[in-house]
């Protein structure tokens, strides 16, 4: 079901967390609300499910205006960060609770709980108490409970934050599989860019209560609208070079080096400050736009190696290369930037 948030404003006391935000989430889509803590992403989520009342603005599910409708009548399933399983009930009763509240018949409850338990692969655990489950299993129970009454919308609040690294990987694809299998409209709140990129159809990246950019993961990675977005996506993160616009390109700060600028980029007037963003995969030994530096940090990641290269003017570029390079800490290198992949930003951080 389509969700429309129109001119949403939320404040707690005198602090305004979100001001005049609008967002459209398509039916059957999985959307990530991504941002640093305190950016208002959870507030938005809780406004959608009705835990927070909106100070102003409208919220529509499909054509239905639910702004003033109570949580109980919105038909939204929520998975909380700490799962919020009911500790005194076993798994079956946990999942059955929404159906019991709705007064479904006992046979219906049995059947639906079985079905959903099979979907999330916890069919054998129905008689256990939450305390007897691992983190991943608790997560599955929470998902099953949120999905069992076939809600119109599924909301996930940092669902993977409490899992260890391996389980996180597993649940990432599991949640995506279940979402696609049920075709439900889902909103995921996360501060982890990898989660957002790997699980979702579109990402809304937020900062200080505003949506900075809304697009597909690939598009957002390759074509960020601001330096904030570029810096938030990608691991290892993008490196920035400071400088000023000059004849023929950008002259690096505290340096005589001038980097030529791709034709597609319109530089501002000469002398204005600009920033170049260069992703680690586009700073490689073989690229053409050479720049001198010294390797100041090496991190072995197994399949790949990550190098920090400190340039002559003190700024740092990152490079990620597949195993086998014979570079060592302290080596002087002359590597190249892929000129057509440079991202340029103006002084305010907007993309040029």
């Amino acid at each position: 079901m389509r969700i429309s948030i129109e001119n949403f404003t939320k404040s707690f006391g005198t602090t305004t967390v979100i001001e005049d935000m609008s967002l459209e989430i398509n039916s059957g889509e999985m959307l990530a609300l991504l941002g640093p803590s305190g950016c208002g992403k959870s507030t938005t989520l809780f406004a959608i499910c009705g835990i927070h009342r909106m100070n102003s603005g409208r919220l529509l599910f499909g054509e239905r205006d639910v702004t003033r409708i109570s949580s109980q009548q919105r038909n939204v399933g929520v998975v909380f960060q700490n799962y919020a399983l009911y500790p005194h009930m076993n798994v079956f009763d946990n999942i059955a609770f929404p159906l019991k509240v709705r007064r479904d018949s006992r046979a219906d409850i049995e059947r639906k709980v079985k079905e959903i338990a099979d979907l999330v692969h916890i069919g054998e655990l129905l008689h256990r108490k939450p305390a007897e489950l691992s983190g991943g299993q608790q997560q599955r129970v929470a998902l099953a409970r949120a999905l069992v009454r076939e809600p119109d919308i599924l909301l996930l609040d940092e669902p993977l934050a409490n899992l260890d690294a391996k389980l996180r990987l597993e649940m990432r694809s599991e949640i995506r599989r279940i979402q696609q299998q049920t075709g439900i409209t889902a909103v995921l709140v996360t501060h982890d860019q990898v989660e957002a990129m790997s699980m979702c159809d579109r990402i809304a990246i937020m900062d200080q209560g505003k949506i900075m950019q809304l697009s597909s993961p690939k598009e957002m990675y390759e074509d960020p609208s601001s330096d904030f977005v570029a810096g938030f996506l990608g691991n290892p993160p993008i490196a920035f070079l400071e400088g000023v616009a000059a004849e023929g390109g950008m002259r690096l700060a505290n340096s005589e080096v001038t980097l030529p600028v791709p034709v597609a980029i319109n530089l501002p007037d000469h002398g204005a400050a600009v920033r170049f963003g260069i992703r680690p995969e586009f700073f490689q030994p073989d690229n053409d736009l050479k720049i001198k530096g010294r390797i100041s940090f090496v991190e072995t990641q197994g399949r790949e190696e990550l190098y920090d290269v400190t340039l002559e003017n003190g700024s740092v570029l990152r490079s990620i290369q597949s195993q086998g390079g014979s570079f060592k800490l302290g080596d002087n290198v002359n590597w190249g930037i892929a000129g057509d992949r440079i991202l340029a930003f103006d002084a305010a951080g907007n993309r040029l």
Partner: protein
Amino acid sequence: MRQNFRNWPVLLVLFVFSAPLLIMLTFLLVDAFTTKVPGTMFPNGVTLHHFRFLWTDLDNGSWGIWGVTLNTFNFALFTSLAVTAISVTAGYALSRLAFPARGFFLGGLIVLHAFPTVTLIIAIFLILQLLGLYNTLIGVIVVKAALELPFGIWVMKGFYDTVPWEIEMAGVQDGASRFTVWWKLILPQVQPGLLAILIFSFLSGWSEFILPMVLAPGNDAQVLSTYLATMLLDGGTQADFNLFKAVGLFYALPVIIIYLVFQNKLMNIYGGGTKG
């Protein structure tokens, strides 16, 4: 297991300090079942004579030990039911709901908690007189429950504070009303607190003395504590101390049994109930 300090010095100190209590309890037990010549230290015979109050009416105007025991039981039971019912709901409200003057109620609760309630007794006397509840068991129950409430509410609020908010939100999202959420999801989490309040206020009611004595001095509303007191007062210098001790033992027995059975549950109150 290796111990990093010796046990016996600690045990010795504890023994010395608890010896008076121990001696008193021993004599309570011994004297209740034995006879002895006045002025001697050790008993000279075993008897159940002191327990005659159980099967004969003592000639002191009250209506027999069983009636008084029933009164005491009713007093303790209804006090604890009232205290528990109100604490469990009021504690929830104070912990979770944003109602007007919440801060005032919280502050008032702490003040009342520490208030020397005996100073209120004249005012309470007058109010009961006015309501026509003076000298009735109901009147004493109402007063006792009211005085126990600050403690109960405070402890229950502490228990509610430890239940994660998310459980409540999850319940609401699952379509349950706030009342269902409280009844089905939250109350089971605070059950240890509920049990502790129930037992504590029962015991407190069982051993209450001042309130029944002042507010219900008549025979109809007599409870075991006042029954014991009248035994001493009526007897004057002739008071039968062995009888007194036997009644005392009878009076203390339920308390001891309840403590033995529920001691683990009672300890919970210190585990969950301390969060402000």
